[in-house]
């Protein structure tokens, strides 16, 4: 078994999908957490693009959170059964990247009036629009009571479940009007290894 290290802030953020993959696969790794106040530190020099997360596998380095998660998913057999499924998973995961892009501006806005308007637009318009598409994709996969791609758990499902934690920064119940997505999140969070990880992981704001 390779030696794995994941290096990120003491936060869920862009590192959590990798952590969920390790948890579900039951694969040990060193979960290195850097406090924001101590960044940049000695790890910055080895970050390919100067940023975390970083995955170290037997000393070899990988950056970019999606590349990291995809690599682990492939290693752990949670990436889809053929190239087409892998691509459909990538599609779902990338769409959350788009949601995060939309979220960035309202999240970072400091002027209270501007922020209120931007959050309202995100929560009322752009988020439901994107979630609506995802709800359809889930529904088209055999009715939507299983997984979002194929017929077994993949990192796309973990990505959906993980998104609730950051979307809650914008609104209390992000999947309120999307019952199939909400059902998937519930199913994922009830997977024993996921439930155990969520119970034991450090509590962080983001």
């Amino acid at each position, binding site marked *: 078994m390779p030696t794995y290290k994941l290096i990120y802030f003491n936060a869920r953020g862009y590192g959590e999908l990798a952590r969920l993959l390790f948890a579900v696969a039951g694969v040990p790794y060193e979960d290195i957490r850097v406090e924001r106040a101590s960044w940049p530190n000695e790890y910055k020099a080895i970050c390919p693009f100067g940023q975390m997360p970083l995955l170290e596998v037997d000393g070899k380095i990988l950056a970019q959170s999606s*590349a990291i998660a995809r*690599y682990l998913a492939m290693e752990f057999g949670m990436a889809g059964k053929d190239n087409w499924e892998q691509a459909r998973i990538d599609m779902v995961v990338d769409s959350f990247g788009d949601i995060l892009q939309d979220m960035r501006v309202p999240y970072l806005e400091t002027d209270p009036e501007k922020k209120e308007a931007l959050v309202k637009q995100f929560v009322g318009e752009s988020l439901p629009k994107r979630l609506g*598409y995802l709800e359809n994709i889930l529904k088209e996969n055999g009715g939507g009571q299983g997984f979002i791609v194929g017929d077994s758990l993949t990192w796309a499902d973990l990505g959906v479940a993980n998104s609730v934690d950051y979307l809650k920064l914008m609104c209390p119940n992000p999947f309120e009007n999307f019952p199939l997505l909400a059902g998937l999140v519930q199913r994922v969070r009830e997977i024993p290894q996921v439930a155990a990880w969520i119970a034991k992981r450090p509590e962080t704001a983001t």
Partner: protein
Amino acid sequence: MPNYQLVYFNGRGRAELCRLIFHTAGVPFEDIRLDHTKGEWPGEWKAKCPFGQLPILVVDGKVLAQSRAAARYLAREFNLAGKTSWDQARADMFIDEFDDIGTEVVKFAFEKDEAKKAELSAKFYADTLPRHLGYLENLLKENNGGDGYFVGDSLTWAGLGIANVYDLLGGTDAPFAKFPLLLALAKRVRENPKVAEYLKTRAQTSF
């Protein structure tokens, strides 16, 4: 051979990486370019788009959205994704970095306020871009001295990606002036026979 359709606007934008992959692999595809001024977009296509957006890739009638997912699918199909799972992950890493650069360009490219646009563009070229290109130059150098490829010892979609960034930045050597290895790679890729042939006949577009 599957039937491939790539659907986008008449521009390089988020579809060009897929086009480069098809041409490099020598695989025929229907290069559909929609003209929104003629009502071709949204037209009949929007309803077929999983997220209501272009580009989409249609393979024997099955639809894939998200430009990187589509490009990766094609790269894997045509053995341009990297030879090992590690190489593939490293290639993915480079592709994500190019996408980050693209996102930065979009920030000023669509800015309507001319003064703000000039300010953002200046900051990008003085600051943001050199930082990104510097990292890429180092990473290239780490791969056997840097006169080959980003990943392994043969062309992957990561190499096509930097050639695409070259075009995104205006198609001149200037932005790469301080990054000789990167410039050499972009040119090497553009001189690959299949790529060169495509570049000769490719439609000139504003984006």
